[in-house]
């Protein structure tokens, strides 16, 4: 843009350097960098607290003073975990010294039992994984058909005025705090479902899954509706011109064209279901069992962190393992989000750029 002058004179077309502008622009840039910095910090500091489990050492016996000084959460009501920590202390005192404590191996994490607060702590993550998978699968299996059909209706079949009411209304569901959904599940949904289906445990994976789907539906609905609406009108018009009627166009032309976006919505829904804490804390019964039955209580990864972090002792192996679970959650949702973004950006853009010519 600026002519290079032979005589090294500053060209009037060159942009003048203004100190104020320079400073402000860099200030804005640095503040923006904070977002990136936070992601890195989350990475570092969540992983940092997991490091002790990677170096083999003995399980530390819980000392009495540590419990009193460094437990988190409210200290007024002694809960079950407090009492069992005390029991462990007493047991350790009775048993003598650290000779009886097992060494913590990394392979312990693959065990079946999750009993971090007992005289012989077990840190098997299998039951937690299965619990998370059960609840997530149930939630998405239940939410996806409903949300996608509703999205199809809103984007294609609904008259304009109805559409302007439905869309914000369903987005209202997205605004519900998850505690509220969990509360609703705990108090009403659980009883309702048990009366209808008559299974044994009131709070189980099924109830948790249905409740979780309430939180996942708005996400799948919003993104899917967006995807379906974004299908170029040319497709619809061409299909109708060739003689198809409205529903044939919707199912065989529009829907397939929107598949990348719908797929992304599913991934986002799964990501949300995976990391959701409050709903599962309140509605799944919180029992770490290894079973495939959907009417059994479960404990998910996120619920474990939520329930036990408040009473764990800082620096304890339990504490480290909980952070390890958190790191797993972070990595998994990170990968899911990356897939959704990558897939949508590439497939979607390619398809529309290529075929709409």
């Amino acid at each position: 843009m600026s002519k290079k002058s032979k005589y090294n004179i500053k060209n009037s077309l060159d942009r003048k350097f203004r100190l104020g502008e320079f400073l402000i622009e860099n200030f804005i840039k640095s503040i923006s960098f904070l977002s990136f910095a936070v992601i890195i910090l989350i990475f570092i500091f969540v992983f940092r607290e997991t490091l002790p489990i990677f170096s083999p050492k003995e399980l530390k016996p819980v000392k009495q003073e540590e419990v009193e000084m460094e437990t988190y959460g409210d200290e007024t009501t002694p809960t079950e975990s407090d009492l069992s920590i005390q029991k462990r202390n007493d047991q350790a005192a009775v048993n003598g010294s650290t000779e009886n404590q097992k060494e913590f191996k990394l392979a312990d994490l693959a065990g079946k039992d999750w009993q971090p607060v007992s005289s012989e702590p077990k840190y098997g993550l299998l039951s937690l994984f299965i619990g998370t998978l059960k609840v997530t699968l149930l939630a998405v299996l239940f939410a996806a058909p409903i949300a996608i059909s509703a999205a199809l209706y809103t984007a294609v079949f609904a008259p304009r005025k109805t559409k302007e009411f439905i869309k914000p209304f369903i987005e209202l569901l997205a605004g519900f705090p998850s505690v509220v959904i969990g509360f609703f599940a705990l108090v009403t949904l659980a009883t309702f479902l048990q009366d209808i289906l008559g299974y044994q445990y009131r709070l189980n994976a099924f109830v948790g899954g249905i409740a979780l789907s309430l939180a996942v539906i708005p996400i799948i609905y919003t993104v899917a509706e967006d995807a379906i609406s974004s299908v170029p009108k040319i497709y619809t018009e061409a299909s109708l011109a060739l003689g198809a009627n409205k529903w044939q166009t919707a199912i065989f032309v529009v829907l397939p064209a929107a598949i990348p976006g719908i797929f992304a919505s599913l991934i986002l829904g799964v990501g949300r279901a995976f990391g959701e804490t409050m709903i599962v804390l309140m509605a799944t019964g919180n029992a770490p069992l290894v079973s495939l039955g959907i009417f059994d209580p479960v404990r998910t990864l996120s619920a474990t962190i939520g329930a036990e972090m408040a009473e764990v002792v800082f620096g304890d192996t339990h504490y480290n393992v909980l952070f390890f679970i958190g790191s797993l959650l972070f990595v998994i949702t990170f990968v899911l989000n990356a897939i959704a973004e990558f897939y949508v950006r590439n497939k979607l853009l390619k398809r529309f750029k290529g075929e709409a010519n």
Partner: protein
Amino acid sequence: MKNKVIGNIILLVTGLSTLLIIAVIVYLISEVVIGGHHYITWDFLTKAPSDGMTGGGIFPAIIGTFSMVMIMSLMGVPIGTITAIYLHEYASKKQSFFTKMIRFAVNTLAGVPAIVFGLFGLGFFIQFIGSGVDKTLYGGQLHWGQPNLLWASLTMAFLTIPVVIISVEEALKNVPDDLRAGSLALGATKWQTIRKVVLPQSLSGIMTGTVLAISRGAGEVAPILFTGAAYFLPKLPHSLTDQFMNLGYHVYIMSTQSTDVEATKGIQYATVLVLLAITFSLNMIAVVIRYRHRMKLNK
């Protein structure tokens, strides 16, 4: 003939799905309203809990939620707005590496589960910064290195920053480029243009973003489970190092771990109702702001 039947079936199925979602929302709301509206009295909203949570009000929880949300917005809204300004005004169209990095970070931040934010608050703010401050300023005594209002608010601030960024960017997009071009043509610098022309026009978007962030922050419980919330505190939080009560946390503990779940049922419903009312009114305010702004633009 067959086509018409199939068409009607599809219409029915998709329409019913939509109706189902709407019905569930309506049912949920009415459930909470019916179960809790008896208990919403002036006393309930202004007094502290009593009789082991079976009586009294939820005033400290309201104040605690309010304080946390205020501090959270003070930190989160400016950072989010500035980031949005960078992404929209300063980032070039050809997407430099820095811009891609920031966009990727914001998208990732939006997808991190709330509980992982809580772990971040614990591992970074409490264990690193808090402990560090304790070691240097207080000689190792536990002062800042434990859960309190400040750390919880900061954790929530980063959780809600993506919400602010999305709203502000949308508002910035709605300011026509001609305005910017005209301002620059008249000799204003880029920052002058932003400050005096673009920002005033996008104020409604900033407000929308703030309100939505507040709504999200008031409702999320997972991050504050172990970074600062408590179930029963004798006093209101009066400094950043205090713990605080919180509406969502209160509902959670009361319905799952309190000593007498049945007796507190009404209070649980009422607290949920208050929380829902706050969330809804905030979301409504955001919608109204957006609507009025759109009306103004279309004139």
